[in-house]
């Protein structure tokens, strides 16, 4: 901005605006409808700052007063996953969706793979239930001090770290043709999390439990290898490699479960 700029000059300059088409829904049960908005342009604005602008002045493109749009957000730096929505047809995080890089009108829709709470807010509770089901944690509690765990080889830690970047955002579920209301596939992220926790030397001590969880309802069996997830994941997690790795691990586990084995966790 030029230092000579005054309020008068601002008024005189032709106002640049950004067009939005937003799919709205008032309650979880009510029918969705589209509403257009014209938002004053600011340099480097992202979808969230535009939504904030609409909240400040909730008037739609027809000039009618309307209700502010509801959306979710938290970290504003693409690590929490809360702000995910479908932007111009693709699920992604709205906090890192820069207006300058999007074609207009910018279309915002909720990720309909999940129950819609209101407008762009969806309920991802199901994903957290899946994490419980696959025991996505490392049990270290005992009645006495268990001491230090085994060391993790550094080169293993490096690739496992990539898997740990998952923020449960739900984009891979939205992208997957097999996550829908006719199936109960828990989604690619959960399979990758089993690989992450089974890779950890302490986590591996109950790896058979996690694999068995993948071999039940909604688990690995529902993957049909469209491989959309790995294309869609904002964190670049090698989901399809994790899926194939867990396919291999469950192949072995299947035989161990059937015949019985002393090598359940090694």
């Amino acid at each position, binding site marked *: 901005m030029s230092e000579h700029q005054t309020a008068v000059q601002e008024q005189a300059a032709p106002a640049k605006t950004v067009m939005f088409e937003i799919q709205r829904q008032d309650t979880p049960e009510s029918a969705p409808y589209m509403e257009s908005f014209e938002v004053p342009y600011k340099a480097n604005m992202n979808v969230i700052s535009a939504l904030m602008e609409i909240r400040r002045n909730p008037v739609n493109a027809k000039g009618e007063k309307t209700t502010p749009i509801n959306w979710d957000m938290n970290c504003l730096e693409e690590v929490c996953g809360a702000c995910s929505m479908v932007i111009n047809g693709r699920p992604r995080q709205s906090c890192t969706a820069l207006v300058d890089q999007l074609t207009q009108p910018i279309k915002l829709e909720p990720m309909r793979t999940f129950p819609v709470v209101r407008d762009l807010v969806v309920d991802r509770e199901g994903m957290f239930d899946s994490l419980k089901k696959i025991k996505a944690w490392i049990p270290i509690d005992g009645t006495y001090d268990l001491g230090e765990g085994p060391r993790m080889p550094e080169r293993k830690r490096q690739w496992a770290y990539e898997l740990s970047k998952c923020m449960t955002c739900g984009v891979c579920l939205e992208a997957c043709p*097999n996550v829908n209301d006719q199936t109960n596939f828990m989604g690619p992220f959960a399979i990758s999390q089993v690989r992450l926790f089974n890779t950890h030397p302490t986590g591996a001590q109950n790896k058979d439990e996690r694999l068995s969880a993948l071999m*039940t309802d909604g688990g690995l*069996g529902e993957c*049909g290898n*469209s491989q*959309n997830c790995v294309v869609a994941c904002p964190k670049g997690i090698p989901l399809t490699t994790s899926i194939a790795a867990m396919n*291999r691990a469950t192949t072995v586990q299947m035989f161990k479960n059937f015949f019985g084995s002393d090598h359940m966790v090694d």
Partner: protein
Amino acid sequence: MVRESEFYWRRLHSLLGIIPIGLFVTQHLIINHFATKGAESFNTAAHFIENLPFIYFLEWFVIYIPLMFHAFYGVYLAFTSKNNVQRYGTFRNWMFMLQRVTGVFLVIFIAWHIYETRIQKLFGAEVNYDMMADIFQSPFMIVFYALGILAATFHLANGVWSFLVTWGLAQSPRSQKIVTYVTLGIFVILSVIGMRALFAFA
């Protein structure tokens, strides 16, 4: 019930696609290929198969039962997927959709093909070179069979890829890519064999 054991049904579906169905289809295409050497040659090869010992047992346990399971479960899988190639137009997503489209088309094609050959045999018709040559008097049938064969070879070749991933044999991105090229080769080779046989009858 189906849901709780989905994992095992899915693995069985995958296995049956290769053993025995995939092996049977390959064998079937190769026998048909004898038609390129003339009617005599084809009839000898076909009679050899017809006269295998325990042929009824083989027909039911190598073909009908595995095929019916794979087909019906396959239709269930096909209609519970929500294809989205408009959103993700990647190669693998297209293959995913085509696997389902060819599968559903194969149900129609195979049903008709069995009716026209095996069921007619029950009514006293003789399954031989002339029977096929008769069928292919109609240009519509030539197109229908050509589509049927291509659907089957595609479905089998892409199924080999899917099988290797489903059982965790091809794991790294590189290995999956190499398998893609290998299965593309399988598709081309089986299609050439199938088409040559078709045009030998027609």
